[in-house]
């Protein structure tokens, strides 16, 4: 049985955040109030989502200082811990899509990722840019009118209503439609966080001497294109699309993967370090 340390830690983090947000509305707690769009920590520290902030600015409204400062704080935080740490440690949709992905594996719905012509992993970056363009054209933050992330979070804090349909749709899409469909192909927020965290400090590191090439890590990884160095070279996963979820570390029985601090002193190349791979 594989280790579930990081999986459990992530679920505890996600749940704790949701409980804190829920309590802010239901019981008046002043620990973490608001939603992911904008929040207040300990009653006075503003936090805001950078992508939402950019959309609102694009729609033509000059936001209050609280949101701008909050977006800056969040950006700096994820620039350090890894942008998509938001996706795997905070985002509630992650629990939905992880469940869909786990069921997919259990039901053996597919072994390999099908290559869709116009649904690539880079599609989300198009959507990210498109979201900003549409915000500017229509004059309203465009992703925020359909974001399943905030719909789910507001659902938990304020009540779901018909919004639950969106969550079910995402689940079904990921389970029966495209593997890692939402988080890995479409979500513009994840794309934004990929960009923010592309140079982040905390990274998964691979020790290729320990690797037995079992490929368990690639099976569980929701973004397994980032694990191109497995059993090839001892470098860190430097791709911004890595969500720092730590599942690869959990399933690795050979101590070949671990969290570490990225070193900028050593020259690390992004896709394939030729000095290692060419031998």
């Amino acid at each position, binding site marked *: 049985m594989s280790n579930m340390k990081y999986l459990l830690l992530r679920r505890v983090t996600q749940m704790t955040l949701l409980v804190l947000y829920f309590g*802010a*509305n239901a*019981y*008046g707690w002043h620990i973490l*109030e*608001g*939603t992911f*769009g*904008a*929040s*207040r920590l300990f009653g006075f520290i*503003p936090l*805001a989502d950078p992508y*939402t*902030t950019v959309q*609102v600015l694009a*729609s*033509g*409204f*000059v*936001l*209050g200082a*609280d*949101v701008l400062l*909050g977006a800056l704080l969040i950006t700096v935080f994820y620039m350090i811990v890894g942008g998509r740490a938001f996706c795997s440690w905070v985002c509630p949709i992650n629990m939905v899509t992880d469940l869909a992905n786990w069921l997919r594996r259990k039901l053996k719905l597919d072994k390999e990722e099908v290559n869709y012509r*116009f649904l690539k992993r880079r599609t989300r970056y*198009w*959507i990210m840019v*498109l*979201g900003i*363009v*549409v915000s500017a*054209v*229509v*004059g*309203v*933050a*465009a992703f*925020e*009118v*359909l974001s399943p992330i*905030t*719909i789910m979070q*507001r*659902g938990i*804090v*304020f*009540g*779901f*209503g*018909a*919004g*639950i*349909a*969106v969550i079910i749709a995402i689940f079904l899409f990921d389970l029966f439609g495209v593997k890692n469909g939402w988080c890995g192909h479409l979500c513009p927020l994840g794309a934004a966080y990929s960009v923010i965290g592309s140079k982040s400090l905390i990274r998964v590191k691979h020790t290729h001497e320990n690797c037995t090439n079992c490929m368990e890590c690639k099976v569980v990884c929701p973004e397994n294109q980032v694990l191109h160095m497995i059993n090839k070279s001892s470098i860190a996963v430097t791709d911004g699309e890595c969500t720092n979820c730590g599942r690869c570390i959990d399933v690795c029985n050979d101590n070949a993967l671990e969290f570490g601090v990225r070193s900028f002193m050593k020259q690390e190349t992004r896709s394939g370090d030729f000095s290692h791979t060419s031998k």
Partner: protein
Amino acid sequence: MATSNNRRKFMATTFQSVGLTALGGLLWSGYSDEVKASPLVLRPPAALPEDDFLKACIKCGLCAEACVNRESNQNRDGSQRKGTLQMAKGGDHRMIGTPFFVPTDVPCYMCDDVPCVPVCPSGALDMPSILNEKKELDINKAKMGLAVVHKESCIAFWGIQCDACYRACPIMDEAITLEYQKNERTGKHAFLLPVVHSDICTGCGLCEQACVTEKPAIFVLPIEQATGVAGDHYVKGWDKKDQQRVQNANEIHTKNERSKQDASEYLNMEVEY
């Protein structure tokens, strides 16, 4: 040959990507524009005009949380009451995630300390708009909407004595006054008619909630829907300041072409449809 093939493939893929992006953009824009269009919605105090409000609101819910958790929102036994502000969810037919209120459900109680406004981080609730001369929050300056009386269903207009809205109003005798009129039907009774004064009314909706009729005869509409605009061609000749506006009135908007006929000619004409 290979390069030209590659180039052709690259061009085709590029065209298709651009085309699909345009398609996606159109659908997305259309959807976003449609969900914006729900004009009959009442916003929290100090909200910007609806169009700007929809741009500015970051959908965080801090206003709704401040509203429901305010100290004054408890029953005598200490249990929590429902808050005024709700966050629109799927099925509410309002822009999802934005705060609104429904007076017949829970009206705005016009708290003196206005807890919902200062917490807004984005500026969608514009605090300066409800500050008085002493720079203090003054809920009486809020303009959430405007109460409108439907006199055909208001029983006070039938001659039945009812002043429920008048007494429920937090700015009693200013926002709603009772006008006395002789009841010609009986010849010996008075009508006590509620009249809303739009310069004072904040649109809190306490009148709507208090109204005794099956469906309230007094109800709050958003300012935009409940008001008209006279335009600069009409000025108050007895008001020097208002007279100044006439200088803006140089544009003439005519929808139909002006008749070239003489007045006596067309007045005697048969009606044509």
